[in-house]
């Protein structure tokens, strides 16, 4: 099997905000491959955002190196890295300032120095993707929180970067808002083979949408692997002060009744139970004693 191309290579990176403060990143090494859909998971202050900010050069490692698509960030400015790594901030209100939705989305590509027809083509495409095409002339501040969040994502998508970092995309959104933004990101990842890094502490969205999980605690990476195995590994999560999702814990408690210990979502659990009770011989026989 061919090793997938490395999109971001983090090599022994340490970072400290003040010389006498503890390390915010402590010799972190991480390889993110092209097409990865990855969650940086951890509690507040674990170093997730600090790590992600080295991807586009907003923070320069105190020691170690970061390269993006083979380019060492030490040799690049933030504005030139912006073409490779799109970084979407947690709060859309930290970036929205234009009079119309389409002007807002055009800000990034315009900064990259693209010709006007290319800019408008990209803006249209990005707004189409996030479902704001019919609001392109609307006043951004009058949009709802979920729509502003989508606009912030669109304005980064429009820059056409092959890597996208999204910091806490679901904060303050209701379940519908979360679903639509995560579905959008998943589609974008799958259809256009782009790399996405999501910074989050929300286990449920990780379990439901994101295939690879990197767990951070105290500036270190404590676990890295497929989401299913990471999130069902209570011991590994405990080092970061986290627990598996509730439904996974329920499944693990019921393990001696044959419930698989790596159930990630309620839907998976329902599917399993449905099979167990309605016919599938395998599942039925795996429930010893039919004690339910």
């Amino acid at each position, binding site marked *: 099997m061919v090793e997938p191309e490395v999109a971001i290579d983090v090599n022994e990176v340490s970072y400290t905000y003040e010389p006498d403060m503890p390390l915010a990143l402590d010799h972190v090494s991480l390889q993110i491959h092209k097409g990865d859909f990855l969650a940086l998971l951890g509690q507040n202050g674990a170093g997730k955002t600090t790590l992600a*900010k080295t991807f*586009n050069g*907003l923070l320069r490692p105190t020691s170690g190196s970061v390269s993006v698509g083979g380019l060492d960030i030490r040799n690049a*400015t*933030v*504005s030139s890295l*912006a*073409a490779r790594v*799109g*970084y*979407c*901030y947690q*709060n859309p*209100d*930290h*970036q*929205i*300032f*234009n009079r119309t939705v389409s002007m807002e989305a055009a*800000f*990034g590509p315009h*900064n*990259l120095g693209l010709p006007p027809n290319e800019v408008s083509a990209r803006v249209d495409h990005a707004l189409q993707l996030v479902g704001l095409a019919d609001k392109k002339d609307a006043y951004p*501040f009058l949009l709802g929180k979920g729509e502003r969040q989508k606009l912030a994502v669109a*304005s*980064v998508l429009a*820059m056409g970067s092959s890597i996208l970092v999204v910091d806490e995309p679901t904060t303050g959104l209701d379940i519908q808002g979360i679903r639509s933004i995560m579905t959008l990101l998943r589609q974008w990842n799958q259809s256009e083979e782009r790399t996405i890094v999501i910074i989050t502490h929300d286990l449920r969205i990780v379990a439901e949408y994101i295939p690879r999980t990197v767990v951070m605690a105290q500036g270190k990476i404590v676990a890295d692997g497929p989401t299913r195995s990471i999130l069902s590994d209570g011991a590994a999560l405990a080092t970061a002060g986290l627990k598996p999702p509730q439904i996974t814990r329920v499944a693990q408690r019921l393990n001696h009744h044959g419930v698989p210990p790596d159930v990630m979502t309620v839907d998976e659990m329902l599917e399993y139970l449905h099979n167990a009770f309605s016919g599938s011989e395998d599942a039925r026989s795996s429930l010893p004693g039919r004690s339910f």
Partner: protein
Amino acid sequence: MPVGYSIYVERPSYLHKRIDPRTKLFALCTSFVLALLFNNPAYLGILLAAVIAIGLWARLPLKSFRAYLLFALWFLILGVVIWPFYIHQGSVVLQISGVQFTSDGLLFGLAMGLRVALMVTAAGVWMMSTSPQHITLGLLRLGLPYKAGMVMSSTIRFVPLINAERATIIEAQRARGLDLKRGNPFQRALRYVAVIGPMLVRTLDMAQSLALAMEARAFGARPNRTMITEIRLTRVDWYIVIGCALLIAAAIALRVLGIGVLVRGYL
């Protein structure tokens, strides 16, 4: 010059802990009046030295005055360059293509610079030795309406928060390819729209949240408020106030007599 919340320097000094903020405010006003009553650089220089001496007595580090004095230095240079064009009394020191520079003109420019230095440094000592809470409390006791006092202290409190917002916004826009360092100053200023826009929205947002939170906790429900920290004018405070009043009276008398005045007819 340092701005905002960080001006106050906590020190265990008599000036910090024992003197009422109202007294300090009156002393500050006195220094302003004295600064305006004299225009002889020697007198203003002595007053500036006195203000710095008070600051050192309050155990403020010497280097904390540097920012204020450097700020005033610009006015000093500006004064020395500009005033000789207007003040023609005194002996001619040098002549450049028909324009005469007199000694009094130069000295008057120096005096104007020292005047700014005096006022700025006095204000600095006042702010470095009086915590924002005490400044507000003093003004409230002087009759400032409570809501206005609240506006004042929350303004000071929000400076570091808004500064943090500004840093975040700049990062977010740089991540979108905004380069604030490229181009000429005019182009750079225009690019700051991308920072100022979200900042305005965020500050309005924060102000609204604060107002809501305060109303939710019954802000303004009672007309008269009590304070956690009480302030009281002591005998020493009254001595200082009387001393300051006498200083002002004496300075006015000197002004009338023409002492300490280098150029008559100018403030």
